[in-house]
């Protein structure tokens, strides 16, 4: 029994002895300190706070020794103090790093602010230029637009004026044609055309007032066409009528002037279509003689003036005799008488080629040949103005 108890106690005592001699587990505080030592800032901390780090290291060594000596309470205490010192040293080192960082950042900030100021200044300058350029471009575009608009307006106005001018010219041309038509009394001789021309001209004027230039031009052209046609139709008729009127007036004047000459008698004769004014100069010759009796110069001169006043009439100078004598002799005498008067008139400036002298002998007596006074009157010359 004793042997059995001894057999059990021996290993127990040996185990307890071994346990007492073994190193206890490392204290947490020391473990934490060792972890702190692994900090990357340890070297910096040593430089910054050598006393603190050295103190911490010393305490750490002491703590290790105490731990190894199984003096755990002291080991913990020293490890804690070492921790505090090392933490402080590390913190102070970090402070330095942070201060340096802040200083570096301050410099960076200053540089960046300078850069920013430069860039902002450049930007402001560039933006100002851009704004000015945009203003310039906008203004240029506006002016260009305005110019184009003004040009278009001017062109439109020019075109309108041109059209207006053309219309006015065409209307003026039509008016002129119409005036021309009026001068030939187209309203009388080409009533339809003249009326159509007047209407179209009125329409052209109305179209022009309403700025319907195309309509005005077309109407004016039609008016001119009608007016021209009216002129074409009316002109010959008008001219004919006008000529007849003029001839008649001239003829009347001629008759009046001829009647005013002393010693002549005037008669108007019509032979078929032909009309003529006969100025009879009776008792101009002595019986059977071709020469003009004295005292008749004034008559001849008045006749010459009359002929010169009316130079367009072809004139026959016809000599006559009474009926006493042979017909052939009478004819010769009458022809001679005509020739004498012809010469007298030509001598007074009458154009000779207008005068056609001839003798009719005793033909066509002016008065009855039964009496001597009648026969004296038949010895005569007749100045015959042939009407047109």
């Amino acid at each position, binding site marked *: 029994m004793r042997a059995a108890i001894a057999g059990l106690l021996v290993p127990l005592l040996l185990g307890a002895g071994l346990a007492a001699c073994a190193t206890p587990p490392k204290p947490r505080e020391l473990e934490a300190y060792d972890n702190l030592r692994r900090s990357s800032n340890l070297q910096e901390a040593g430089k910054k706070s050598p006393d603190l780090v050295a103190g911490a290291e010393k305490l750490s060594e002491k703590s290790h020794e105490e731990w190894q000596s199984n003096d755990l309470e002291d080991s913990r205490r020293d490890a804690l103090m070492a921790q505090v010192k090392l933490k402080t040293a590390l*913190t*102070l080192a970090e402070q330095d790093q*942070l201060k340096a960082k802040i200083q570096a950042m301050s410099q960076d*900030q200053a540089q*960046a*602010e300078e850069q920013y100021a430069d860039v902002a200044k450049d930007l402001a300058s560039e933006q100002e230029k851009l704004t000015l*350029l945009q203003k310039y471009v906008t203004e240029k575009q506006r002016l260009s637009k305005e110019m184009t608009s003004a040009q278009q307006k001017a062109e439109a106005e020019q075109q309108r004026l041109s059209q207006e001018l053309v219309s006015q010219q065409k209307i003026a041309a039509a008016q002129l044609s119409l005036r021309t038509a009026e001068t030939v009394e187209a309203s009388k001789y080409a009533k339809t055309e003249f009326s159509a021309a007047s209407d179209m001209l009125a329409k052209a004027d109305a179209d022009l007032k309403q700025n319907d230039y195309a309509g005005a031009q077309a109407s004016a052209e039609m008016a001119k066409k009608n007016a021209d046609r009216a002129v074409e139709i009316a002109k010959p008729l008008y001219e004919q009528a006008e000529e007849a009127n003029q001839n008649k007036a001239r003829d009347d004047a001629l008759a009046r002037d001829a009647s005013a000459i002393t010693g002549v008698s005037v008669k108007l004769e019509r032979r078929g279509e032909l009309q003529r004014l006969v100025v009879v100069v009776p008792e101009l010759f002595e019986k059977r003689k071709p020469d003009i009796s004295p005292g008749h110069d004034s008559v001849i001169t008045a006749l010459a003036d009359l002929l010169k006043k009316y130079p367009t009439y072809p004139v026959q100078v016809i000599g006559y005799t009474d009926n006493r004598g042979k017909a052939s002799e009478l004819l010769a005498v009458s022809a001679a008488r005509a020739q004498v008067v012809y010469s007298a008139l030509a001598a007074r400036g009458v154009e000779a080629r207008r005068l056609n002298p001839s003798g009719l002998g005793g033909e066509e007596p002016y008065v009855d040949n039964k009496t001597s006074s009648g026969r004296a009157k038949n010895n005569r010359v007749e100045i015959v103005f042939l009407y047109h």
Partner: protein
Amino acid sequence: MTARTRGTTLVLCAAISFMGGVGSVGGGRALAGEEDDLQRQIDTQRSGAADLERLDELKATGDEIALLRSWLDEAWNLRAKHEYDQVREVLDRSLKQADLIRAKITTSKLRAQAAKREAALAELRAKITKTRKALADTTAKKKALEGSTQ
């Protein structure tokens, strides 16, 4: 080290010297004086811990202050057990811990300042990049406009 810390350290040193001098004379009166002195030191450090907590605007040292307080409690308990040497040792460590906390508070403020500066710098750099881009765009627009006007 702040004026307050220096003051506290001087008081503590004076107290320790005084205690050392008087302790050798011995006697119950000396022991009672030492206990009072240690209590004052603990109170002073507790007040200091509260100050530090107020000082730590960024709440960067919460754990360290908690540790300091636990040590001051430990010192208080040890004082009650008349373990004055241990109390002194704990108080000494607490003083160093207070120094550490102050350093950490300063560091946290510096870190915040650095972070603020870094952010401001990053912001400024971003502004520079943005402005440079705006400048390049403006220049390109200007060139294009110039081209169109010629």
